């Protein structure tokens, strides 16, 4: 059996040429292409940078986090209900729950906004919109994804918050609050959910729609009862990815949600998310090696684990919907 990969042939010595060869001398052995080997090595290195990045992230987060956990027990980290990281080992309290609470509260608000808007847009674009409307609406929706988050933070603080305070009263709604940040964050992830869900909806075979129409289904029934369920795993993946973005989003919450770690379910309270803490603590020039500095990496590691888990979950759903068709 003579199949061999192309790359192995380069630079090997010639097999002895038979004596019955015709006039022209013949060598099919490869030229030594050392330059190309070097180039190939460089290209490999470029591709490997992404691996180094991941390894770097994991190492960096977990090495510094493990230093942190030498001083603060993991048990305390996950059970203590107060986060006061600037007092050192003695005065400080290092319970991450208030930060996680803040993150989840904002994320929940964001999802309440983003799921109906994103899913509605997706169904509209995939099932209802005329091709021309679709050609216009889709890129406009995607523009939203290109708005820098610092801009959205500004919008949350200087537009959304005053609106909320006008509606619910200034005594109810604090200047920094989870609701305002969450709503704007929800708007931010609409394009993510809409475009991925739309892909999933559009991937549903036309035959399925036609057979449903053939049974007397209306457009709405076909969209809700046939197409959406068929695309469900793709839609779930889109929602999970959107959630991952919400959890990792930093500037909107750093600007509009405040810097007060707090265990609360009140959307109008000031809170602090994990990401906002990282920005706040780093900005405070926490000395390298101090407990505060290490705590940033502990929070970062937890954040990374959460988003990573969501990513893996989403990919599993994506794979499922690819398998169906």
């Amino acid at each position, binding site marked *: 059996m003579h199949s061999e990969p192309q790359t192995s042939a380069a630079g090997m010595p010639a097999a002895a040429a038979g004596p019955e060869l015709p006039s022209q001398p013949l060598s099919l052995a490869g030229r030594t292409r050392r330059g190309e080997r070097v180039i190939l090595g460089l290209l490999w290195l470029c591709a490997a940078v992404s691996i180094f990045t991941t390894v770097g992230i994991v190492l960096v987060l977990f090495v510094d986090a493990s230093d942190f956990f030498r001083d603060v027990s993991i048990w305390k980290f996950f059970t203590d209900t107060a986060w006061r990281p600037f007092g050192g080992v003695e005065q400080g309290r290092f319970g991450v729950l208030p930060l996680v609470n803040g993150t989840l509260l904002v994320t929940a608000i964001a999802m309440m906004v983003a799921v109906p808007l994103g899913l509605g847009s997706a169904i509209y674009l995939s099932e209802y919109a005329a091709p021309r409307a679709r050609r216009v609406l889709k890129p406009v929706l995607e523009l*939203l994804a290109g708005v820098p988050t610092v801009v959205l933070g500004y919008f949350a603080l200087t537009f959304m918050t005053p609106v909320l305070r006008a509606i619910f009263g200034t005594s109810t709604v604090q200047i920094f609050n989870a609701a305002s940040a969450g709503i704007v964050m929800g708007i931010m992830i609409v394009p993510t959910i809409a475009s991925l869900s739309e892909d999933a909806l559009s991937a549903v075979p036309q035959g399925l729609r036609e057979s449903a129409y053939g049974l007397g289904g209306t457009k709405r029934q076909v969209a809700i009862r046939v197409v959406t369920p068929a695309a469900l795993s793709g839609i779930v993946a889109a929602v999970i990815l959107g959630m991952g973005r919400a959890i*990792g989003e930093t500037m909107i919450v750093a600007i509009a949600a405040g810097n007060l770690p707090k265990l609360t379910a009140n959307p109008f309270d000031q809170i602090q998310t994990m990401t906002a803490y990282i920005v706040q603590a780093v900005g405070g020039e926490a000395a390298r090696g101090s407990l505060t500095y290490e705590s940033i990496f502990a929070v970062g590691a937890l954040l990374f684990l959460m988003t990573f888990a969501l990513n893996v979950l989403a990919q599993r759903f994506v794979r499922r919907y690819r398998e169906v068709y």
Partner: protein
Amino acid sequence: MAVSTPRRTVHDTLAGLERGRRRKLKERAFATVLFTLTAVAILVLALLVVDIVLDGFTRINVDFLTRYASRTAENTGIRAGLTGTLSLMVLTALVAFPVGVGAAIYLEEFAPDNRFTRLMEANISNLAGVPSVVYGLLGVAVFVYALNLGRSLLAGALTLALLILPVIIVAGRESIRAVPLAIRDGGLALGATPWQVSYRQILPSALPGMLTGTILALSRAIGETAPILVVGAVFSRRADNEPWYFMEAFAALPVQIYNFVSRPQEGFKIDAASAGILVLMAVLLIMNSAAIVARNRFSRRY
């Protein structure tokens, strides 16, 4: 077996029609709801743009662009931030473009089909989901401290380069895949080595797509605040940032906007911040237009 079918009366038929009418109403209501949901996000976008333009338009003037930051809102400017952002853009592109293109060529043209390659591919799609603030932490630990670059422009640019690398790789692979296989076969059949085919035929054809992808990725990078904030971009700097002084401390536009908006005084929080945002958005708009031009200008037909 005989089944007795009740005879359809006129009344039944009309009832059916009635139901049809109600159903039509429901249908239309549903379509309207969907359209409204789609419109909400777009309306918010419009609202945001209008709000920012109204807030910031009058604050923009030459002084705002050419002055360094000041303690008073009336005299403050974004010169350091703007030059910093432009320098970041240049340095980030210099790092991310070659590496991203190299990786894309490797993965499309040379990577053997083995576990390591699949690991790389899975890894790239996972990296896209890592929050940008985490890249900032990587930048602090590796570039600022381990490589001892300090809180410098270069550390910021390298961090942003890693952040957008997955995007560039994905765009690069797509544009390589768009080059017809026949071109590749044609080159190889002439005795070109795979690298010669990649370099002389595939790369030139794929370049416009790669450029477009890179510009779009860069426009994402320069809008990013969290990673460079974590790496240590400063707000107030009384000097220009030039790409060749890459070991200096640096300011960047989004970081300045963040600082403005975090202050209590309206002059900073509203006026200066929104003016800064307008400048940032203008830069992004220019970049996106450049991406479109790059795509149209160099696009080839096959």
